[in-house]
């Protein structure tokens, strides 16, 4: 094989690779759009009026997740399954956002931590790598961490809206999450960087709880919520 032939062979490979990336980028863009729509729907829970509408907002978000499922199904057709990690970077960000949104919806509905299986189910993807397009564990964890900071915000806003009960429940939840994350041996990677932010969310919520309890605002309702938790 001559040098020229060799290079034109490689060039052929590279341009095929670029075509795939182009296709993926297009689908991911649409997916990001949908993710933003879901986020907008869920953001309204921070409004004082939004607290009563949580179930309806969640239902609306769930509807939008149907669109996500079809879009992800489209994404799956754009590249060979076994090359997931070759193109991982293209959808990593949006998949983390979607994991966050799914986790947030599930939290608002049932105040529990979404499992990785549930997220995968909501997004219409797999959990195990061997079975196709899957949710990487790091992406799932990153999504959960995004939710933690969203919840610290929710704690503040729920106090403003007069719901003194919720911050205590959020506090319990976040503390549990924190002890969960402390089990992990993280490398010095983006996930670790994000995890380092968790302590500020914990602190913020603890401050809110402190403010409430020192004023006796959370006392009765706090006990009550402790019961049903």
């Amino acid at each position, binding site marked *: *094989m001559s*040098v020229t032939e*060799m*290079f034109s062979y490689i*060039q052929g490979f*590279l341009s095929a690779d670029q075509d795939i990336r182009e296709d993926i980028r297009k689908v991911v863009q649409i997916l990001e759009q949908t993710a933003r729509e879901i986020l907008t729907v869920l953001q309204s829970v921070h409004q004082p009026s939004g607290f009563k509408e949580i179930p309806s907002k969640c239902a609306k978000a769930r509807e939008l997740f149907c669109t996500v499922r079809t879009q992800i199904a489209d994404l799956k057709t754009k590249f060979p399954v076994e090359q997931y990690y070759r193109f991982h970077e293209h959808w990593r960000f949006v998949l983390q956002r979607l994991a966050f949104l799914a986790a947030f919806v599930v939290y608002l509905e049932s105040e529990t931590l979404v499992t990785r299986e549930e997220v995968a189910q909501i997004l219409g993807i797999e959990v195990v790598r061997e079975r196709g397009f899957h949710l990487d*564990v790091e992406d799932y964890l990153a999504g959960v961490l995004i939710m933690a900071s969203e919840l610290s915000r929710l704690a503040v806003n729920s106090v403003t809206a007069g719901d003194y009960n919720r911050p205590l429940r959020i506090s319990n939840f976040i503390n549990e999450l924190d*002890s969960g*994350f402390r*089990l992990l041996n993280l490398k010095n990677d983006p996930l670790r960087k994000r995890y380092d932010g968790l302590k500020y969310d914990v602190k913020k919520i603890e401050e809110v709880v402190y403010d409430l309890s020192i004023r006796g605002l959370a006392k009765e309702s706090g006990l009550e919520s402790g019961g049903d938790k």
Partner: protein
Amino acid sequence: MNKREGEGYPRKNADAALDCATSASPSSPVVAAFKVFQQELDTKHDKYERLVKISRDITIESKRTIFLLHRVTSVPDAEDILNEADLKLDAVRQKIGQIAEELRGEDIHQFHRAFTPGIQEYVEAVSFLHYIRHRSLISLEEINVRLVFMRREKGTAEALPLGAQVLTFQVTPSDYLLGVADLTGELMRMCISSVGNGDIDTPFRLSQFLRQIHDGFSYIGNTGPYEVSKKLHTLRQSLGKVEDACYTLRVRGSEIPKHMLADVFSSRNTLLDPEEGVV
């Protein structure tokens, strides 16, 4: 918070984690889930570290092979050195076999970053050897053909009914490309040192070859990975040096009468075949 202070720091992480879990919420599904994640992440990181280690070994051995090959220009009988280099590269291939072993059933691209430096260095070494032997560019296929491994340890004892398991390792086109880009630097060094040894034939052949590679890279341009365009710059510099050397040889060669030029070079290195000195 107190669970962090109360429980044993000196103990192993998993141990402490266990205590932490029991003191916080004994059967919390969250903690149970995170224990699974812990295991999964640790397994992945361990594998990654092992691959990095193998990759470093490959890099070191390949570099040594390249140094060895540079001695070819100053030695009368190149064959010995080439054979020795072959042996060294066989050892490197064994190491690549270990990578293939680690990657069995994994997504090769997930861990690609761990071993890409080693593979590039291997491509560089193997293509350098190939050039010295055959004066041509080794193809991607030729490299991959040699990276087929038979499993021995378990294969002979238990897994015979399955047949000897064959493991392959595929060098990706972009790793190949980056390795070849590094090769040009070695060729430049080889060119300069062969001028030093009075070999005036090799530089011209090398410059031709380098030009072909350069043209190939220009053809690829920026469609390739990001690192390629960075290496293209160094490639240009190498090519410039080789072309300058050829230019100088030509100019000086026309000034000094041919037989004297041959004298000059053969007196500098008596081992060199006198005919090689004449252009």
